[in-house]
């Protein structure tokens, strides 16, 4: 086990990534205002010092309970929120740099998002063709006339919506949930995006078709697209993503290789999370890890210590006053905890 300081962590990420296509998030901090007061405005810290990277052809999963900041990460990468602190880089270029600012179109051509609810993310009064044409017209201006139609049909075929021509003529209500989510994926692909941020893409779908969507995304990953996969289901994170980050109240508490994180969890929160996952064939009541019953804290910019201290079974006095530093417990497996 070697202790790493914050600075060397960031350095490592930077030196690894130069050259190849990647999205990098370094020490991201986001504060949300809790009121509209002119003076003494209160803030909550939704993300605190989060760093990770997504490489082309790889998936990074973010796992955590509701309110842990997973979706905020994705939304900040689409520039829906402005970071309070930290740097977001796309292929080495700062997306929020004030000098040569990247336009939203430039960013959207590279990074696209898929949302949880395929029923809400498509316009109900337009055909699939109309909804597919719009991103293609904006992001593929070199395509004209029939070329647009051919390109659109090829994308629909690629996501498994055949016969593509008939599907294109349909309205969203004529498609099933799984088919709609495929249309949402097709729209993201049509821009030529290299990175897709998938925010709980399968949690609203039927159990029997979830795997189909996951496998489709896995095939796209093989073709060189990078994914940020946001989920609360750590089992699918392990199934789909090479790397997994576990989040708790805006902090990344454990991250690294998915197999290492799920098979050998080191942080007490990850252990609690994994022991609570219901699993086919395991009987109720023999869970090994118990958390203390306590409220999830509201993290503020001046909060101190480890966010999990209030619920942690291994808590010490140090945990209430100091943020644990990062420890590399195995190759590509990092944990932020004193009790290792």
């Amino acid at each position, binding site marked *: 086990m070697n202790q790493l300081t914050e600075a060397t962590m960031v350095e490592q990420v930077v030196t690894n990534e130069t050259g190849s296509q990647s999205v990098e998030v370094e020490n991201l901090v986001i504060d949300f205002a809790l009121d509209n007061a002119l003076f003494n405005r209160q803030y909550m810290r939704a993300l605190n010092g989060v760093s990770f990277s997504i490489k082309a052809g790889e998936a990074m999963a973010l796992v955590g309970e509701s309110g842990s900041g997973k979706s905020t990460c994705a939304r900040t990468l689409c520039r829906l929120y402005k970071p309070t602190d930290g740097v977001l880089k796309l292929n080495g270029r700062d997306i929020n740099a004030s000098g040569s600012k990247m336009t939203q179109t430039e960013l959207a051509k590279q990074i696209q998002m898929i949302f949880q609810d395929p029923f809400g993310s498509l316009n109900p009064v337009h055909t699939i063709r109309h909804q597919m044409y719009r991103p293609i017209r904006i992001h593929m201006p070199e395509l004209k006339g029939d070329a647009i139609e051919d390109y659109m049909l090829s994308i629909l075929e690629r996501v498994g919506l055949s016969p593509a021509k008939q599907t294109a003529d349909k309205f969203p209500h004529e498609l099933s949930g799984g088919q709609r989510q495929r249309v949402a994926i097709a729209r993201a692909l049509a821009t030529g995006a290299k990175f897709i941020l998938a925010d709980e893409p399968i949690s609203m779908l039927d*159990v029997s078709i979830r795997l189909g969507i996951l496998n489709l995304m896995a095939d796209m990953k093989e073709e060189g697209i990078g994914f940020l996969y946001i989920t609360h289901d750590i089992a699918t994170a*392990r199934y789909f993503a090479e790397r997994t980050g576990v989040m708790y109240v805006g902090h990344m508490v454990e991250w690294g290789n998915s*197999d290492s994180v799920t098979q050998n969890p080191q942080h007490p929160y990850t252990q609690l999370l994994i022991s609570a996952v*219901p699993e086919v064939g395991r009987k109720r009541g023999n869970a090994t890890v118990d958390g203390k019953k306590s409220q999830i804290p509201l993290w503020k910019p001046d909060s101190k210590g480890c966010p999990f201290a209030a619920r942690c079974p291994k808590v010490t006095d140090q945990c209430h006053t100091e943020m644990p530093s990062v420890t590399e417990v195995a190759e590509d497996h990092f944990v932020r905890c004193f009790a290792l």
Partner: protein
Amino acid sequence: MTGVREPLLSISDLCVDYITDDGNARAVNKVNLDIYPGETVGLAGESGCGKSTLAFAIANLHNAPALITGGKINFQGRDILTLSPEELRQFRWSKASMVFQSAMNSLNPVITIGDQLVDVVLAHETISVTEAEKRAIAMLDMVGIHASRIKSYPHQLSGGMRQRVVIAIALILRPKLIIMDEPTTALDVVVERDIMDQLYDLKEQLGFAILFISHDLGLMGQITDRIGIMYAGQMVELGETEGIIANPQHPYTQGLLSSFPTIHGPKERLEGIPGNPLNLLDVPAGCYFQDRCSQCDTICIDVMPNIEVLQVPDERQVACHKVSQGDAL
């Protein structure tokens, strides 16, 4: 299951149709199910397979366009479907209560949780308000909510606490059966486990039976005694939980069980179930699962399989020609 025991609830040949302009969709198709006192029975299947429709039918809650078109529902020897509106009102909640799918939203946002509990008691029993309040506080205490929260409004509680309140409301009249329709789907796994542990502690104290509806076979495998698997309105497999999880017979059950990536276990590409759920307005003549089944044969296309009791391994009921013929699946 000992044969001597009387079932608490006995559903026989139940059919529920949805009447639409395009025809009648049979959402529950000749389903038979017995629930014994103190037992937990799970119902699993994908959305639209009729599991929630079946749950609504037990409390006779259906309104047009849904119509119960056949069958009987016997609860402790009385047919629910023939009760008068007043008898039905008394039956609901005091004998069988429900925890609905979006339990988080099934509380009234402008009334305190204490009043909502008191309302339930006063609607069914003639006792004083103070007496009812005492009952409410005792019940909240049982589900792990401190009495000081009785004046709280639902928005002041977290999702997990709201779910506990809903369970408290469902249990306050001490029903014999509680129907839970995807009770923890909106919660994260740690909260889900806490609530399930608490529910089972209460079950030991109060001795009610649970009909647990979910698509999460993992959770179901841990908490139920028996599982019924539904597909397109039909019960396709019914049996003891351990047997079904370890040795599923129907191809749909097998597909469903292999649709979940596991957290431990080997990491391999899973294929799940191909195709899309059946459109109930356009049903085939034979087995409803034929389009998605890898074992499909001529007999499956022509003849609808009946649910049959297998001799081995346990008293498993399966509706599949291939299983009845003894072809190893």
